[in-house]
């Protein structure tokens, strides 16, 4: 075992490093970018355009689409180097990682010709409109309705509400999953469209989160007209499209999520110890928890290296990557409580607004709770691990052979 790149990978990494060194703009932890969203968007777009010019924007995409037809490991290497320099902002992650690949797979030629290149260049931002107030873990339970317009145009009229949409307020386009047939079982009556977020009848309302921040949105559809040409995939065939999108969901693993155990050690080393002697880092209980937490987080980081190894060998990463989010989110929460404990009463002070070490752990305090839910709850992820990785049976389903309509009625009468 070693951590060396193959000759080919090493050459690519060298090339990336040189390019980044010559072209890097600003770091994302720059005060202005952290606190000013329009500055962040402007910078992100400029940086994306630079990357696109150099064919680093979507490395694995075909050259015809603006990519470089590269290998997965090359994308991983680029991401690594970009992250090291703090240049990535995440603004395009959902669009280029999930939405646009869906468009590329399911839209007609003209649409692709129109939409893909600007997205890759960062000129247009995409969001993903799947979740609804009553369709969270159970994505196929969406109620947002699309019916054919009665003017014979073939257009669809969409009404309903989406929720938890990241970036909806600054997105140009979105892909939206809607119900086109309530008289069949729920997975069978769904259709996917792409939609112009500036279309009439769409309104975006930021969600005030438990943390008193506003990172997500509710998106209301009120008689929104969508031409049938914006359909992705078959009518009532949207579930297949949605699965394709979700399969591309990138799970962030490892160190990127908030303050970690090493930061905790640093914090402890600057705080007084129990009983007034030494520092908080000297307490055996603290050390034991730190050791166990470190091993979990470090284990995740190393698990990611196993995936990179598979990529560099041209293989598919193993199922072990499925553990990423469920472990990382819980670690965020655990480390936050440890940190606030050693801050003692000072842990009650809210420094989230600043970039201080206590403030970063308070950020973890809220976001640990959030990340155990966002992108699949702990419970859903453990179901996925047990079913898809371990081959255990799916939960008993009572909604398989029932029409969506009667399911809703059943609910209404019992709820």
């Amino acid at each position, binding site marked *: 075992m070693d951590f060396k790149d193959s000759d080919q990978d090493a050459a690519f990494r060298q090339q990336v490093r040189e390019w980044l060194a010559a072209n890097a703009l600003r770091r994302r932890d720059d005060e202005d970018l952290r606190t000013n969203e329009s500055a962040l968007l402007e910078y992100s777009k400029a940086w994306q355009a630079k990357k696109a010019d150099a064919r680093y924007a979507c490395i694995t995409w075909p050259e015809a689409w603006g990519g470089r037809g590269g290998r997965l490991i090359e994308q991983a290497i680029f991401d690594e180097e970009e992250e090291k320099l703090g240049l990535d902002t995440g603004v395009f992650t959902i669009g280029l990682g999930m939405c646009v690949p869906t468009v590329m797979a399911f839209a007609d030629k003209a649409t692709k010709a129109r939409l893909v290149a600007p997205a890759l260049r960062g000129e247009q931002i995409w969001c993903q409109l799947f*979740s609804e*107030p*009553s369709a*969270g*873990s*159970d994505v196929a*339970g969406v109620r947002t309705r699309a019916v054919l317009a009665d003017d014979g145009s073939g257009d669809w009229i969409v009404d309903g509400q989406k929720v*938890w949409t990241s970036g909806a307020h600054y997105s140009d386009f979105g892909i939206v999953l809607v119900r086109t047939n309530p008289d069949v079982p*729920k997975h069978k009556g769904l259709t996917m469209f792409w939609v112009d977020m500036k279309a009439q009848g769409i309104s975006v309302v930021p*969600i*005030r*989160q*438990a*943390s*008193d921040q506003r990172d997500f949105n509710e998106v209301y559809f009120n008689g929104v007209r969508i031409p049938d040409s914006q359909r992705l995939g078959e009518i009532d065939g949207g579930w297949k499209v949605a699965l394709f999108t979700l399969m591309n969901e990138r799970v962030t693993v490892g160190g990127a999520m908030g303050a970690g155990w090493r930061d905790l050690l640093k914090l402890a080393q*600057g*705080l*007084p*110890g*129990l*009983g*007034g002697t030494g520092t*908080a880092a000297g*307490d055996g*209980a*603290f050390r034991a928890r730190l050791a166990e937490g470190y091993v979990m987080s470090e284990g995740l980081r190393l698990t990611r290296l196993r995936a990179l190894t598979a990529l560099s060998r041209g293989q598919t990463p193993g199922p072990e990557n499925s553990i990423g989010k469920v472990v990382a989110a819980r670690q965020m*929460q655990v480390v936050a*409580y440890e940190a*606030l*404990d*050693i*801050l*003692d*009463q*000072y*842990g*009650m*002070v*809210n*420094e989230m*607004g600043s970039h201080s070490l206590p403030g970063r752990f308070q950020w973890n*305090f*809220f976001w640990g*709770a959030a990340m*155990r*839910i*966002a992108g699949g*709850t*702990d*419970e859903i992820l453990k*179901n996925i691990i047990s079913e898809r990785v371990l081959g255990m049976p799916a*939960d008993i*389903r*009572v*909604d398989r052979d*029932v029409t969506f309509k009667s*399911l809703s009625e*059943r*609910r209404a009468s019992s*709820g």
Partner: protein
Amino acid sequence: MNFDFSEEQVLLKEHARRLLEAECPSSVTRKVLEAPHLGFDKSLWKHVVELGWTGIAIPEEFGGTGMGHTDLCAIAEELGRVVAPIPFVSTVYLFAEAILQFGSEAQKRELLPRIAHGELIGCLATAEGPGYFSPGKAETRVVKGRMTGTKFPVTDGGTATHAIVAARSESGPGLFVVNLEGEGVSRTTLDALDPTRNLAKIAFEDAPCQPLDGGRNAGDRLAVLLNRAAVVVAFEQVGGAERCLEAALTFSSERYAFGRTINSYQAIKHKLADLYIKKEIARSNAYFGAWALSTNAEDLPRAAAAARIAGTMAYEFAAQESLQTHGGMGFTWEMDCHLHLRRSRQLALCLGALPLWREQLISCLEQADLIESGA
């Protein structure tokens, strides 16, 4: 065997619950959450004073109702349930107790009736910045009856009229009473993780103060005070945990996923069974604390530590997992999950974090391996 609330106390609790359901729905807590400069909800405070709750453990001769500490615990559980946005912990469990335990006759006569009548809001100031506070290392000094130093954060420090301050004087570490509205005191409000409890930095510059010099030595006085408050706070924690459980039970019985209510999945069922277990363990430990508190038992340090550990573990688990059970909705501002998430952490830290109490518990077990056999 009489290890439970008495019939009268059960009635008192039921009464308090009905009253708080009416007077302190979460909209009242949210008023302070949305406008932390309010510090606390004045009208709820007034109500609570009128009911005599602030004086429930204050003897009648000092203007209280003289009901006792177990009754106070009963009320505390109900206040914990509703995340009450009032300075009850600071004023009643800490300030009033400090005067009751260590005040001179004159201090009692001067201050206790004003607490009972709701005119005095008290707080306890110990911390001097981040990390565990050690009385022996306090940098706040008292010289010739005048205090100089900075305390932060102080819960309810921005709205209190009086403070008990842990400081060092010529004769070593001690507790002192300071009129926060008097000279030499300046205060700054701090942003709080739980904005329904005021948090402040208090700077003293030659501020006049009076010592609280009851019979015990200084380190002990603060410890006694914290032990007594820890028991009552444990009841707030039990109440909060129980409310979180109820909320999760209700929400999960109404939320559907994959055609079933989510309370039909073992992942949710067993999570809430775990929550129930922790909550009952906390309740039992809190009862033992209430017994030790109300009888001034020698066991109080052990009982208080156990009550605090179990109460903290239960409420924090409850707040985390009740939010988790609520899914995405649980992470919205409009749901009450975050009120408990914030308050559970606030209660966990306001009397010192768990590492301190775990250490206290084990020291007790070491020192008095025989206490139990007498129980």
